[in-house]
Structures are given as C-alpha cells and as structure tokens.
C-alpha cells in the first residue's frame, strides 16, 4: 500500500485527456449541443424557449433531486413515481371532490408524499427489507391505493362519482404553480431552482450532508463514527417522498387534472437524470448539480430534436445513448473501483 502511494502518477497526454473528458466531457457535449441547435434552429436560442426547456426539466429535476438524496445514503427509491401519482390524486381530489382551497390541497398532497416516505422508512429501517424490494412493494401498494381511492378514474372538473357530478375545480392559487410566473420566469422553474439550492446546501455545505454521504459510503464505519445511520436513512426517504409530492403538485397544476398513474414515467426519468449526474464534473457519486444538469440535458435534447421532427421513439433512443455515454464516463473513464 505504502509503496504504490509513493509512486508519482504518470502524466501522459492520454491520461490528461482522459481526465479532462472525465471531468468536463458531459458539460462540453451539452455546450456543443446548445450551440448547434441555436445555430440551426433560430427559435432554440430565444429566452422564451430557454424557459420552455427549463419548465420541461423542472419536474424531472425535483423528483431527481429526491432520488439523489436517497442515493447518497446508498438507497434507491423506486416509489417516487407512485408517490407523485398519490400526491396528484390527493391534491386534485381535495379540490375537485372536497372543494378545499388550493393551500389545503397542497398540504394534503405533501402529506401524501411524506406518508410514502414514512412507509418506506418503516419497511427499510425497521423491517430491514432491502431498499430496492421495499420501495418496489411500496410502488405497487401506493399505485393500487391511489386507483382504489378514485375508482380507477382520472380526477377532473365535472367528474362523476357514484352517479353524482362533482362541483369543485382547481383553484387559481394551485393553477398558478403550473402557469404563473415571477418576473417572466415560470413558477415551476422558480420552485425547481429553490429545491435545487436547498438540496445543494444540505448535501454540500452542512454537517448533515457529509453524514448522508458517509452513511451511503460505509454504514458500519458511519455508525462507528457516531452517526445515527437509521435517522439519516429515514430523513433521506422522507425528503425523497416530499420532493416527489412537490413534483406531483407541479405536474397536476400544469395539466389541471389528476390523471391516473401519471407519475409512473418520472421514476425512470428521474433516476436517469441522477445517473447522468454522476458524470458531471467527475463527481462519480450522486450529486445535486449533476442531477440538475442531467434533467436539463434531456429537456434541451428533446426540445431541439423536436424542432428537427425526430419521431418520439427516436427521442427515447437518443436519451438511451446519452445515458450510456454518461455511464461510460463515470464507470469506464473514472478512477477504477476496488
């Protein structure tokens, strides 16, 4: 061990290039892509289109930041899409069926997301079921529960329940989340930016953040160092569920409906954003900035490809290529793991 550590690393040109690609490769590709789309499609580079891209990225980014937190403790939350769907249905039903105000609907929706976090915590921390299988079972439980609650229907203004037409509708405050803006920046972008800043501060600039990573790196060592591992894992799943519910509100407010299982595709989108994030600045671990870049990258890519009329299935393929390239950067070019 001692002798290898003393050896000075050979700084060949190839090695330096490899290092550069490892650190800045993905950001460079993103930059080149933006330049290319801007030059070829005049509309792409406008402020208004930049806002469309960020709006498209905002929901994935918020769910992805939640996934990032659960990944820092070495966990994996497969139930974020289901938590989103549950929050959406709970908030939509609160307004449409319960005729509650927007504020109450938001609180109910958030409680639904946190409840999923509590369920996951119980299964993982107390029942000691491995993260993947525990959150997989919550995925099905929560999706089923959501559908049972609304009889398999989408929740929308004027829906019929037990032969009675509902009277409530989405309130202006709630709709504002989806279509309002602050100094011509869309509300959903402002919310996502706020969540990003909070998660970045938590993970990178606080003692708790270091503890999250320590728990994920080696729970036994973390416990030996006096970190209350169980508490951090519980906190991670609560944050994950809570952020999924915020993303759910953003989605419901944009569509003005509570659609059945509409959160499902966001699980994979969010996980993909978090994994792409590993390759940003050579982090090689879950990190907030990387996840944000992962979400914006995909949104910008789809936005640009749409302008070239790429068919939807080709867009999915290109997204796959992006993920593979990012994984190659962090796993193949990155420092070898032991």
């Amino acid at each position, binding site marked *: 061990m001692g002798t290898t550590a003393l050896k000075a690393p050979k700084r060949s040109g190839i090695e330096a290039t490899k290092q550069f690609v490892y650190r800045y490769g993905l950001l460079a590709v993103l930059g080149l892509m933006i330049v290319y789309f801007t030059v070829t499609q005049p*509309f792409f580079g406008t402020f208004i289109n930049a806002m469309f891209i960020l709006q498209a990225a905002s929901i994935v980014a918020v769910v992805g930041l939640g996934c990032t937190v659960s990944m820092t403790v070495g966990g994996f939350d497969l139930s974020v899409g289901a938590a989103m769907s549950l929050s959406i249905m709970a908030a939509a039903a609160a307004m449409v069926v319960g005729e509650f105000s927007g504020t109450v609907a938001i609180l109910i929706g958030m409680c639904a997301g946190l409840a999923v976090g509590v369920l996951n915590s119980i299964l993982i921390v107390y029942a000691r079921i491995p993260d993947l299988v525990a959150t997989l079972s919550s995925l099905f439980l929560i999706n089923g529960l959501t559908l049972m609650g609304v009889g398999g229907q989408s929740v929308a203004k004027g829906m019929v329940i037990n032969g009675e037409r509902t009277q409530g509708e989405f309130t202006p405050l709630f709709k504002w989340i989806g279509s309002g803006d602050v100094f011509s920046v869309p509300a959903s972008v402002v919310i996502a930016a706020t969540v990003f800043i909070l998660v970045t501060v938590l993970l990178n600039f606080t003692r708790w953040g270091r503890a999250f990573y320590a728990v994920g790196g080696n729970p036994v060592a973390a416990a030996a160092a006096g970190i209350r591992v169980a508490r951090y894992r519980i906190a991670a799943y609560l944050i994950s569920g809570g952020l999924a519910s915020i993303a759910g509100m953003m989605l419901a407010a944009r569509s003005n409906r509570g659609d059945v299982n509409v959160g499902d595709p966001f699980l994979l989108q969010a996980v993909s954003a978090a994994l792409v994030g590993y390759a940003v600045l050579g982090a090689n671990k879950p990190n907030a900035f990387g996840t944000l870049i992962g979400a914006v990258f995909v949104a910008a890519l789809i*936005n640009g490809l749409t302008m070239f009329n790429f068919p939807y299935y080709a867009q999915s393929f290109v997204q796959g290529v992006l993920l593979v390239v990012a994984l190659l950067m962090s796993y193949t070019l990155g420092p070898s793991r032991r």
Partner: protein
Amino acid sequence: MSIQEKIKNVALAPLVGALMASAAWADQIPLTVSASAPSEVPASVSDGGFKIAVVRQLNVGDVYQAWITGVQEEAEKLGVELSIFNADGDNAKQALQLQQAVAEGPDAIVIGWGFGDSLQAGLEAASAAGIPVVASNASIEASDSVTLVNQSEHLMMEGIMQQMQSDMGGAVAGDMIYVYVAGYRPLDLRDEIWRKWKDANPGINEVAQIGVVNANTAAETANQAIAALQANPDTVAIVAPYDEFTKGATLAIQELGLEDKVKAYGMDISTADISVMIADKSPWVATATTDMKNFGRISLRVAAGEATDAYEGNNLEIPPLVITRDDLISNGVTNVDQLGEAFPGLSTPGLALAPWMN
C-alpha cells in the same frame, strides 16, 4: 362549462336529449367550404414557409401512427411544413408543448387528442396570437378560433350495436362484458349510445364493466377480461369500443379458448387490428371506423383551410363505416392500404376540400 359537462348533462336527460343537444352545442356550426374561399393556391402557401404545428397527446399505438401518417401525407400534398410535438400521454407535457407551439408562431395548429382543462392556457395564447386551432378528436370546445374535427362517435357505436343486433338475429340479449373508461370524450360519447341500447333492450345483461387506459392498455385490458370471463361463464359478447380494448378482449377470449361462445365487438382499424380480425377463429367480428389515416389527412387539410380563410363554421364530423370480419376476409383485405379500395366509403376525398387544394 366544458364539453364533457355538456355531454353529461345531455346524457342525464335522454328524453330531451336531442333538444338539449342542439341547444347546448349552439356554438358549434357545421363546417362548410366558404363561397369566398381562395381558388388559387394562396401566396402564403406557395411562397414556402407555410407551417403547421401538430401537438399530440397520444402517440404510441397503431391508431395514432396511422393518424400522423395521414397528417404527413396531406402536408406533403399541400406543401405544408410540419412541426410535430408528442406528449406521450402526459397532459402536463402537452400543455407546455402547446404553449411552445404557439410561441413558435405557425400558421395553424392541430391538436391530436387532449383535454380542454389542460390546454386552456395554450388555447388562449393561440387565440390572442390569431393562430387558428384544429382540435382533432380532442375534448375541447369549439369557438371562433377552435375548429373541431371528429369522427362521429355516436354513429360508430350505433353501427356496431346494429351489427350485433343483426348477428343475433333481431334481439340483442345475453350476458355482456363492457369495456369503458370515463373521461375520454370519444369513449364518453360511445358510452351514451351503449346506455341507450341497454335501456332499450332489457335482455342486455352487463355482467362486468372493465377497462384501463395507459401505455399498456391492450395487455391490461386482456388481464381484466380474463378475470371477468372466468367469473361470468355465460358471457356471449364483449363490447370493447376502442381498438386497444378490443385487442385485449380478443386476446382474453383466445387465451381461454372461448372463440365459439364469445364475440368481441370493437372499434377503429389499423393494419395490426386487421391481422387480429382476420386471424383463424378470431372472435373480433365487427368494428366501426373512420380510416384513421384519412382522419389525419382531413385534420391537416382543415388546419390549412382555416389558415387560408377557406371555411365557414367550426365543426366537422367524419362519417364512419361498419366493417365485419367476413367483409375483410371476402375482400382479401390484409392491411389498411387495401381498405380504401375494398371500402370506398372510408376515404372522403371531397370533405372540407377548398378549391385551392386541388
């Protein structure tokens, strides 16, 4: 009041349905080619750069693929540049995409499926920007700036029920499984006719109502249908008025080997649907359809016409055709391209055709 509300109000009062329908839909005026429509290709089109944005809620599946193919063919014929957005069934995504389409400033916008509640902001922006919108098969209200293009859902459902009546030799009766999900305009409209038939024919015994709409509709409908068929062994028919439903129903009947006992009455048609229908012992005996490709073609044509002031009115209904399994087999039809030759009633080349489009 949304269209769905109006429809449901009408449905609540079947006795005065016809009367109320005409009152409630007063803001809908049948679309006709205007006498003052341009007869030469307008300069905005012939000069190039005439652009139509297509904003689709649903894009995965045979029906949607056929529809977009029709849109693309007609665009090529008329010299229109297309910009296509796909929302993958996510209404929030479609809402954002419609706003983006408006911001790009096309000459017209076609919405392929979608909900008025979700698209409100984008529709207002389009109206403010003076961009005509064509709502194709979408749950959106007609207005000065929004033109509706729909297949006649009522006539389609009426068509397959009449086919069932003639198959059963006059009296429609027996245990039936019905596939339906509320909240989708075409399905809601078909449901009105189903309820009308149930009321008029007490012999119809609806033993189960099943249905799910998601990315995996056919397979999940099949699972539900298998359970429902096993619970109700006397079932004689599955009424599944949407082709993903019908494919699911057909699969369920085949997996249980009930082809001789249970028939599936479906809706829509695509090449994949045809191969399911003409397969050996297929229980899918009849379907009602407008050719989806033709539907897409008409939708794009109406958008181009609206952008060149070619029409009066804001509502166009495409007439359907009932096609039986026997019709397909006797005509040797194996794909949608042959469908047009075998059933000339499907293509409606003169519909909404402005003089300049020839």
